């Protein structure tokens, strides 16, 4: 599904990701741990093709297409989707409009289909009529992002810190819907969708069963392995053991 080869990414002239390699097969969900400032979000933005994240070297292949130089919307058309950690506020553009756009329709009318989707996330019509992200709480941002992905139904989903700032009640709902979006209810051989989840706290791991886990340090994937093992280690010792094994420095912990 996604293959990243030898990727180097600069942001404002500063090298954030160096010679990174990552391969996610169809039906696989990977989780990416790492301390703040290590380049996790940069990696997602580079996969999505935001121009501020400049690819200096390497290639990104998505469904066997070289997307390294494609604009974001072309990548999205190929089946990519993202749940943002800090999405921008857009005045006058309602959450319902965003859902329509994700459904591939024109914004403007909040109809039954949008309302039905909203119900799954306990999102009221009133909430659909609010300007997107304007004054949203942490949990509301997450629910709004998941709602847009439910409308979009991408084949490859990226989640940037889906568990940050969410209360216990909502995290279970978000975890359930993430599993549904990723098609985790199916047996492994029938899974079609793939995902890459960034988490700093690892909180969401209680609700997800990813196939593989990675730890990112200093712009590179420092270690990879079985999710349970890596999660346990991180919960107990943070990133120290990984740092020790790889000889990397911890960015901003």
């Amino acid at each position, binding site marked *: 599904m996604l293959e990243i080869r030898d990727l180097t990414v600069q942001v404002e002239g500063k090298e954030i990701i160096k010679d990174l390699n990552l391969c996610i097969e169809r039906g696989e969900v990977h989780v990416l741990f790492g301390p703040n400032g290590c380049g996790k979000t940069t990696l997602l933005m580079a996969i999505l093709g*935001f121009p501020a994240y400049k690819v200096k070297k390497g290639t990104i292949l998505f469904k066997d297409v070289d997307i390294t130089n494609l604009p974001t919307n072309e990548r999205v*058309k190929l089946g990519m989707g993202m749940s943002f950690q800090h*999405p*921008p506020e857009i*005045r006058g*553009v309602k959450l319902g409009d965003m859902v329509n756009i994700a459904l*591939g329709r024109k*914004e403007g009318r909040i109809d039954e289909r949008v309302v039905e989707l909203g119900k799954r996330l306990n999102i009221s019509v009133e909430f659909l009529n609010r300007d997107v992200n304007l004054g949203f709480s942490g949990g509301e941002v997450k629910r709004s992002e998941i709602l847009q992905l439910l409308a979009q139904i991408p084949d490859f989903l990226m989640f940037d810190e889906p568990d940050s700032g969410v209360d216990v009640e909502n995290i279970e709902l978000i975890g359930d819907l993430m599993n549904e979006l990723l098609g985790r209810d199916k047996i492994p051989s029938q899974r079609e969708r793939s995902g890459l989840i960034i988490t700093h706290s690892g909180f969401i791991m209680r609700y997800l069963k990813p196939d593989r886990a990675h730890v990112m340090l200093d712009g590179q994937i420092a270690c990879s392995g079985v999710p349970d093992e890596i999660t346990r280690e991180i919960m107990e010792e943070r990133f120290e053991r990984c740092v020790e094994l790889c000889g990397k420095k911890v960015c901003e912990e």
Partner: protein
Amino acid sequence: MTEEIIERAQRAKTKKALLGEDVDLEQYTTKTGEHQAISALGEIPREYTQDLLDAGIEPSEKDRSGSFLQRDRSVVFSKALSKSLEVMSTTEAVAKYGGLKDYLWKAVSVDADKYTAEVELAPSHGYFIRSKAGSKVTIPVQACLFITADKIRQNVHNIIIAEENSELHIITGCSVSHAVNSALHIGISEFYVKRGAKITFTMVHNWRSGIDVRPRSAVMIEDDGVFINNYILMKPVKSIQMYPTAYCVGKNARANFQSIIFAPGNSKIDLGSRAVLQGERSRAELISRVIATDNAKVIARGDINGTAEHVKGHLECRGLMLSDTAVVESIPELKASRKDLDLSHEAAVGKIAEEEIRYLMARGLSEEEATSVIIRGFLNVDITGLPDALARETKKMLALSLEKVM
């Protein structure tokens, strides 16, 4: 009385306005042929139909409780379909109601500047619309001031009255025919919202790049009265300067102004709204959205003056720059002369945020599509207080005019 008014007008004949560039009245003529009255709006020559539609005027008169059309300096149509409403030319109303002494030049002063003086000295009608006490007609009245002759001065004087506990909704369109290159429109509008009454006034300006426009409007709002003004300007204009003022005279009087301005070409726009909160617990909200592109110059003003107990006012002005050669100046003013009141303002001018475009692209839109969604959103002010059908129509009207400019 009348003589005194004429005298004051005479003295103000050359008095320049405080704001806006000075317009030489003599460039424009008051001599123009009269137009024949028509018996239905649909009889207007077909070449003008689109000009009316663009200003929100429905030539079929469908979903309207009354219609008024003034073409150049002639009133060609006026009709009320509801017994609760009066719709006629101001000239007719002045004759019928003994000079309209309680209303004419009572909210706007005749000697404010040379434009008010001009309307008194060389008037060309305007409309009189009144709703009867206790009546509630939620279907709007439409009024259109239309210019079809080149180089004319259209000097209208409008009087709008909502009698006690009545509700009056008006859509007004000022439009100019495609055949006109230059003209001057001066419009005096005096609104009277009586005790417990409500007026909503939705105005669409559909000008062209050779037209000078100088409206002079004021609103008197009595106890528990509500005045809601929606203003939409999406087309180029040579120059426009207006600063309508709502006087919240009564207790709990409320005034809302919402202005949506898209300024293209070489338009020179100096536009604001002002509320004087002199009635106890009166409230005002003044909101404007300005988009400036090409070489447009826009001054967006707002002024709230609180002089009574427990009044509340909020002013919000947002500007979006689409060009490096356009200029937007935002001038919010608050004046308070009591301790127990609450006035606030926010103003912001900027460009379209890159991250907003990227976010929309991440949902599948191209850069151009994302930009136009953001622009439409920016201008998407919640229009409150209008009956549902009228609110829907206003939104549709706005969407249509946006499509044309983008």
